[in-house]
């Protein structure tokens, strides 16, 4: 099959869309394999290949992230760019590929962006303070299965940043809320629950992400289907953190 790609190329402060036509594509290729094919061609032609982030190519590491035809990770629901296959496109389609765009995600090169703001949000409080060796027996605290399941669903976040890329406010609230929910519903996460919400949101805001207006673009872009209910939970914890006596 044939596709016309319009790919964002950027090496300095600004960039532009450059058009490439690829014939002989197989519908069984993944989207990233198509970029591999393009890059092989560019290299043999003496041009620089398109830089894009990827690693596991299994939809779990969260490294890949492309805005494909204006949709984060492309048109398939609950699918990362690396798991997207060309059979979901039609022969002759024109496909625009852009990097994630948001103020706190500066473009490094071509389709590669810097998402270190996510690490800072986690560092601000997205953990349970438990030094190695200090833990009680794993069965000391049973966890009701529904809570464990809710925690797991939220913990499934891969930190890809699609939520930010899709958000009209450039908000990272879904990512932040996923972590706050994961730890906040488990008994192990209770002692730091409210300070965690407070500190993570503070870092979220300080990193330059916008505020959430509950438009829901994030969940529909999220490859792991993290629900908006996580944001409500985070809001509740944050309110509690600021309305009860501060623990610090």
């Amino acid at each position, binding site marked *: 099959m044939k596709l016309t790609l319009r790919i964002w190329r950027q090496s300095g402060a600004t960039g532009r869309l450059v058009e490439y036509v690829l014939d002989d594509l197989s519908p069984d290729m993944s989207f990233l394999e198509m970029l591999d094919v393009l890059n092989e061609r560019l290299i043999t032609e003496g041009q620089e290949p398109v830089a894009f982030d990827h690693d596991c190519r299994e939809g779990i590491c969260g490294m890949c992230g492309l*805005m494909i035809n204006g949709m984060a990770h492309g048109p398939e629901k609950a699918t990362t760019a690396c798991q997207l296959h060309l059979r979901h496109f039609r022969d002759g389609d024109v496909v625009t590929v*852009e990097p994630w765009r948001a103020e706190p995600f500066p473009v490094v090169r071509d389709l590669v962006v810097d998402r270190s703001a996510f690490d800072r949000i986690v560092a601000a409080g997205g953990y349970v303070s438990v030094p190695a060796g200090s833990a009680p027996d794993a069965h000391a605290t049973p966890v009701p299965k529904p809570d464990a399941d809710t925690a797991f669903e939220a913990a499934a976040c891969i930190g890809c940043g699609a939520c930010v890329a899709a958000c009209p406010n450039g908000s990272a609230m879904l990512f932040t809320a996923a972590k706050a929910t994961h730890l906040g519903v488990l008994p192990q996460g209770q002692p730091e629950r409210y300070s965690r919400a407070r500190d993570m949101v503070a870092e979220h805001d300080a990193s330059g992400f*916008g505020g959430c207006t*509950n438009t829901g673009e994030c969940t529909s872009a999220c490859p792991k289907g993290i629900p*908006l209910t996580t944001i409500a939970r*985070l809001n*509740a914890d944050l*309110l509690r953190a*600021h309305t009860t006596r501060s623990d610090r």
Partner: protein
Amino acid sequence: MDTIGLYRTTVGKKVVMAVTGAGLLLYVVVHMLGNLTVFSGPDAINGYGHWLREIGAVWPTRVALLACVTLHFVAAYQLTAKARKARGRYEHRRRVQGSYAARTMRWGGVIIALFVVYHLLDLTVGWLNPNGIPGEIHANVVADFQHWYVVLAYAIAVLALGFHIRHGVWSAIQTLGVTTSRVIGLGVAVAICAGFLSVPFAVFTGLVS
């Protein structure tokens, strides 16, 4: 209670919007119910207006409303500014989910604000009213809605309000930390639109005169 600390966060600003929005919504609901007295004849609605003045409800309400609108607006403005800065600009962009209502909160809010100014000059102060005699609520209203363009403007504003409320109610509940179905917002919005629109259409079609 760390109000300032809370307000500094994006979530805190939204909380302010939610609370002030709820205040405004309460007013809107009461206002709409008041409007419906028009169907019981001139005396009912004129009497209702008179009664409000008599119990001294008008000025405290105005002060509260002004406070709400100001806070609501300032928070909205600050959040919008932050979002503008944060969000990326794409060459090719497609929205997947966001409802029309969610996307038009800001412009919808501005339309409502402009309408409120006109509305005050029309029915409160009377300058823009064809009848324009303070206290003669019924006559003023009837005089207004004889004109198709007044009805149209009013209808647009009410629909804008409906959209705003549809997303706003759900969003406010979410902001305050409770998750519910989006249907609640829709329900409230439809009820309010229906209530407000019934008056101009009744006048225009001659049901009320």
